[in-house]
């Protein structure tokens, strides 16, 4: 078992670290994370428009379109917001002006769209291209725009203002030549040559989105995240760097289906992992905390008491480092197997339609049954499934927990004898 940890430390961790340190991936991660508050608050209006109580639902139905507007202007334009903040973060990472990076990114992204003409209303942009569906287009265009900005800067293709001009004014002029390079390039490709950049990028990433929603698509992140946490590295943040854009596209497709009254297509947007697998934090450690509460080892009992409330809020670093779970060969097995088992179970329960597939992003610090209930738009069966999952994981932890508890008690007894 120790050789496994050595193996992880030698091979998996450096690769994953490199990946999460990669400049562009980091900008994508930080850019997308900045948009999460808008997505959470925006999708809350989904719950108001489609409340879980039938009588209430009938009452608000006539006003659904108005209620959904804040949702449409946030989640519905997610790619546009993300594009700006990815451009900002990437520019900052090159020590370039962040706002210029964000604005150039947005302009390049918007230029991939062609407005449609509405009779006596003027021109309109299709929102569907600016929401989750356009996420990968936004990412690619943001990177392209900032790379053009950097190219111009490193070749000194910028307009220098004389001294005495305020910094902020000078900086905005620095983006003039990059913009003069960037916009014609995108325009030539999209509008003159007629190459549909959007369509091309969406199709390019389609296999990734499909894979993300398969059984392998849930097991691979689960296994990688638990392996990383078992060595004490924040698995979610590392794996999420790559997976979060895919999870957001899956979420967006689900939420769009609900808003238009269609069946929900995807099982595996992020709330799937958050509420049904990572109950109490990665490794579904709430089960371990429950077992510790009545442990025969006074140390584990005190850890259990101290980690119970954070655990309810899905914060489990105190468990990982306090028990510890990190580099613990006994607890490693249930820490990995538990999430794999309940993840697989939940996947099949949802594909059979026994529980609604998640389509709403709610803050991750809510207690899991409540989070599961809200993220499925108020399906009580989701809360029941969470409780079932907790029971299953507790049973998986139990024998290993007992063995570890015995080991600690033996150690404590030996220590006392020595004293």
């Amino acid at each position: 078992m120790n050789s496994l940890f050595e193996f992880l430390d030698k091979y998996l961790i450096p690769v994953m670290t490199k990946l999460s340190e990669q400049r562009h991936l980091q900008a994508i991660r930080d850019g997308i994370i900045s948009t999460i508050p808008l997505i959470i608050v925006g999708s809350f209006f989904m719950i108001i428009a489609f409340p879980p109580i039938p009588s209430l639902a009938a009452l608000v139905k006539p006003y659904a379109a108005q209620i959904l507007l804040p949702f449409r202007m946030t989640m519905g334009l997610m790619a546009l917001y993300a594009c700006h903040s990815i451009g900002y973060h990437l520019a900052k990472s090159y020590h370039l002006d962040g706002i210029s990076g964000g604005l150039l990114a947005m302009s390049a992204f918007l230029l991939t769209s062609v407005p449609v003409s509405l009779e006596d209303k003027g021109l309109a942009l299709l929102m569907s291209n600016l929401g989750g569906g356009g996420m990968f287009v936004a990412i690619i265009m943001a990177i392209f725009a900032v790379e053009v900005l950097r190219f111009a800067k490193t070749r000194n293709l910028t307009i220098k203002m004389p001294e005495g001009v305020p910094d902020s004014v000078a900086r905005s002029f620095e983006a003039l030549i990059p913009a003069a390079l960037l916009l014609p390039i995108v325009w030539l490709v999209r509008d003159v040559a007629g190459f549909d950049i959007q369509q091309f990028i969406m199709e390019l990433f389609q296999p990734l989105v499909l894979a993300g929603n398969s059984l392998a698509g849930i097991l691979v992140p689960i296994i990688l995240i638990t392996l990383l946490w078992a060595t004490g590295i924040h698995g979610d943040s590392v794996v999420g760097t790559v997976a979060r854009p895919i999870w957001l596209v899956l979420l967006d497709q689900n939420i769009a289906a609900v808003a238009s009254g269609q069946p929900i297509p995807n099982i595996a947007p992020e709330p799937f992992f958050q509420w049904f697998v990572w109950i109490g934090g990665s490794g579904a450690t709430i089960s371990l905390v429950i077992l510790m509460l009545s442990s025969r080892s006074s140390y584990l009992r005190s850890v259990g008491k101290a980690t119970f409330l954070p655990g309810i809020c899905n914060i489990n670093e105190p468990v990982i480092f306090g028990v510890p779970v990190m580099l613990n060969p006994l607890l490693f097995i249930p820490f990995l197997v538990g999430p794999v088992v309940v993840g697989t179970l939940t996947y099949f329960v949802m594909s059979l339609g026994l529980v609604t597939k998640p389509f709403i992003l709610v803050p991750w610090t809510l207690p899991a049954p409540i989070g599961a209930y809200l993220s499925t738009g108020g399906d009580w069966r989701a809360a029941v499934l969470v409780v079932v999952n907790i029971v299953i994981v507790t049973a998986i932890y139990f024998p290993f927990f007992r063995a570890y508890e015995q080991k600690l008690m033996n150690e404590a007894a030996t220590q006392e004898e020595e004293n």
Partner: protein
Amino acid sequence: MKVLLVCSGGMSSAIVVKAIEKEAAREGLNIEVKAVGTGELEEELKNGWELVLAAPQVRHRMDEFCKKAEPYSIPVAVIPPQGYTPFGGAIMLTEIKKIIG
């Protein structure tokens, strides 16, 4: 002493901040501790901290933290895993004193 803790979201390190404050009060030590997420680190560094402690689960991003702290010449260290718990106050204080005491 002014010590800044950084973890992924600033949540779990808030628990450790409490542990440090409790232990410091017991020892009668005057210390200011704050927890931030990795995204807030750069901004927060401007507010004059003496030491940055990175949570063990974000230790793979140490290079990035060091680079950010360099212009302010603030030392950065990784928190030992056994200190990163609600009972880790004493370990944390020893560690802090070892670096800036």
